[in-house]
């Protein structure tokens, strides 16, 4: 019998599904991270130019990729929220933003830590780092807007508009900063050495999947909390075993 995806589009039906998925992704993330870190810190050889410090790319690159990927996914849910007006789409976008911001922050932080020993400075105005910083501002703006708007439905739609406008801008921002950077012949950052060793590449890919699985697990967990909060008046929420025992506390 074909699976009816639309059935999943209500918070009530997706809530238990998310609950079952979380442990799979959480364990998957842990296992992949273990493999990835082993590859990155144990197996991959010392870099010819940069020594051991380069190993931070096994965290820096996956987090940067995730920061951009999550933004696009968030914008996608925003499009659904605007187009179909479904509450779950708005909730998904709401759940993704903080994790996306975290990934961006990790990317920037690890980038700075890598920069200090490598080029002598914590910060360099190269295209990628600067665009990543602006991406962080975009995320923070979306989170701030959601906080500022009281009505959840208005917040869903306003944040959707903002993330869509932002997603159109991300390539423009990257391109403009790259342009600016080449014009100024600034410190050019090479993220890798001359070429990528297979083990390095493998380590980065595995870590990327680990970060991705982690993000999915965390986003789904946050989504469940958001669903409970926003649907708290619904009957099915009151009937949940966790809630029933604490009926007085929720209200």
């Amino acid at each position, binding site marked *: 019998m074909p699976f009816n995806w639309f059935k999943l589009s209500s918070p009530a039906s997706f809530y238990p599904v998310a609950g079952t998925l979380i442990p799979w992704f959480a364990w998957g993330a842990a296992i992949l991270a273990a493999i990835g870190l082993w590859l990155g810190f144990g197996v991959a050889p010392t870099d010819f130019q940069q020594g051991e410090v380069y190993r931070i790319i096994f965290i820096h690159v996956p987090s940067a990729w995730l920061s951009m990927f999550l933004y696009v996914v968030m914008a996608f849910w925003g499009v659904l929220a*605007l187009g179909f007006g479904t509450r779950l789409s708005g909730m998904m976008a709401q759940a993704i933003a903080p994790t996306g911001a975290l990934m961006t922050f990790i990317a920037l932080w690890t980038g700075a830590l890598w920069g200090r020993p490598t080029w002598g400075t914590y910060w360099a105005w190269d295209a990628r780092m600067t665009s990543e910083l*602006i*991406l962080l*501002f*975009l995320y*923070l*703006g979306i989170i*701030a*807007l959601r906080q*500022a*708007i009281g009505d959840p*439905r*208005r917040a869903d*739609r*306003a944040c959707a*508009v*903002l993330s*869509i*406008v*932002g997603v*159109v*801008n991300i390539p*423009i*921002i990257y*391109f*403009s*900063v790259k*342009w*600016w950077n080449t*014009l*100024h012949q600034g410190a050019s950052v090479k993220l890798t050495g001359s070429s990528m060793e297979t083990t390095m590449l493998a380590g980065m890919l595995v870590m990327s999947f680990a970060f991705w699985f982690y993000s999915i697990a965390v986003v789904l967990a946050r989504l469940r909390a958001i669903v409970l909060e926003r649907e708290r008046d619904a009957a099915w929420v009151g009937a949940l075993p966790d809630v029933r025992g604490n009926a007085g506390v929720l209200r």
Partner: protein
Amino acid sequence: MNATAPSTATILASVPADGALAGVRWALARDLKLAVRSRAELGVQLLFYVIVVTLFPLATTPERNLLSTMGPGVLWVAALLASLLSLPRLFATDHADGTLEQIALSPYALEALVSGKIAAHWLTTGLPVVLLAPMLGLQYYMDGESLTVLAAGLLIGTPILSLLGAIGAALTLGLKGGGGLLALLILPLYVPVLIFGAGAVDAVRAGLGATANLSLLGAGLALAVVGAPFAAAAAVRIALD
């Protein structure tokens, strides 16, 4: 339906065929008239621009070469800040006296009405900056060629600031923390305009010519003119809901 009551068909017929243009015209004319009658407010914003531009040399250095290098950047950043200062006005006053609801309920397309308001905003805040900047650029020992490119960049870029800013102004309608929140939302979007606008002057000084930068700004303007009214109108409807 009673025959003497105006039917939907006749009402729609009375909206002129060039409905969109008429909407733009209505909004532009009204907002300009209102701006002229509150001249003091406009003066304050321009004064803000002048003050910000004047503060930088005081805070940094009166040394000629350094000022000359900083000049385009400072004049552009100040233009951004002046734009941010004036943006909340775009929709907030109409929202406060109930006019925005009437605008949203008009048979004219909201995108057209919003475009008219944005055009009026640019004419009253962006254009004066374009005219003022070259004079202020002299404080930064900028030469004629730099000043021309600066003005050209501002001429193309300030409308983009108004267009993108309108989206932010509409999204933050009626919210607490208005001005600061608006800045947080809009500044990332302003960055490319800043880079290409100030970059045009740098390019011309480096002997590379400003065409590339200005063309990219022009492309950005085209994109903003087409897209921003829709995003801003959507944001207004969301805010009124």
